[in-house]
């Protein structure tokens, strides 16, 4: 069972952080010393997060509008604040640490998009906006939309990417402490976002017609990072997805 929405709003308030307060000076100094393979992997993951976080931040409003009560709406609002910060954080890393060219976040994202798989771009820039658009038109689809946003995208894709980036940072020939610090803070936020989505799913008491596609979507989406994430990490993400769905009250296994 999962706690009520009020817990998430209080938690979010207590976890606020400022991406501009993170010291990236050591990261800027270390970045040019990364080996080519290290640079490709870290920048690839950052590119994925730039695309992903911009999309999740930009598509949450219909969820707020479809919330079933004030406390759920307040939780979506708290989450939206986090997602906007995450998008700013990864853009800041891209521009100030990795030196990605571009005057605006949009220009930098256009540069970085080439570094991520077409599957990831499709998931975040086509499937997610289409789902949000359907939700904006028909508020009845909230559970399915949360299933994609919170359970698949956040619970499988982003969580797997976050663990992969932290693991990669651990093994680099030079340290990137600012990126590590921010990534840990993003991961901390994501934990409650996933808990919140799980609570929405739990409350909906969903049946097979929603649950089975949700499982299949998770299995497919886990591969969206391409070779930036190991097969073992993908397998772990899928297992966690199944376990999470079951813990959220789905009973078809």
């Amino acid at each position: 069972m999962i706690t009520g929405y009020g817990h998430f709003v209080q938690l979010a308030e207590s976890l606020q952080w400022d991406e501009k307060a993170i010291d990236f000076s050591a990261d800027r100094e270390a970045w040019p010393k990364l080996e080519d393979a290290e640079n490709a992997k870290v920048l690839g993951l950052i590119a994925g997060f730039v695309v992903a976080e911009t999309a999740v931040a930009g598509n949450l409003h219909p969820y707020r509008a479809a919330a079933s009560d004030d406390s759920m709406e307040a939780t979506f609002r708290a989450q939206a604040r986090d997602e906007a910060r995450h998008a700013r954080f990864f853009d800041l890393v891209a521009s100030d640490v990795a030196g990605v060219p571009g005057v605006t976040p949009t220009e930098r994202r256009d540069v970085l998009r080439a570094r991520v798989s077409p599957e990831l771009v499709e998931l975040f820039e086509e499937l997610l906006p289409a789902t949000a658009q359907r939700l904006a038109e028909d508020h009845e689809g909230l559970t399915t939309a949360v299933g994609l946003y919170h359970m698949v995208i956040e619970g499988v894709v982003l969580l797997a990417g976050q663990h992969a980036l932290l693991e990669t940072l651990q093994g680099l020939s030079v340290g990137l402490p600012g990126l590590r610090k921010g990534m840990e803070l993003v991961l901390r936020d994501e934990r409650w976002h996933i808990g919140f989505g799980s609570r929405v799913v739990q409350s909906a008491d969903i049946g097979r017609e929603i649950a089975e596609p949700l499982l299949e979507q998770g299995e497919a989406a886990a591969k969206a990072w391409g070779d930036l994430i190991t097969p073992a990490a993908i397998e772990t993400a899928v297992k966690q997805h199944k376990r999470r769905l079951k813990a959220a009250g789905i009973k078809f296994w």
Partner: protein
Amino acid sequence: MTVRGGTLAGPAARLWLCEPCGFIYDPEEGDPDSGIEPGTPFEDIPDDWMCPICGATKADFRELEPGEFPED
């Protein structure tokens, strides 16, 4: 109610909250997917067990006080 009638977990099994994600461990339910049988008190769960929702560790949980159940 926070305090549940227990089986193996005892007559006053307490609930534990995963603070990072809001999952509540109920000893009456356990976590069978992870090999934690119903009736297992939180204290008896192995230290390497992880929250089924967010993957946080056992150390991230806190025991709910009697009467405390953050439903909303």
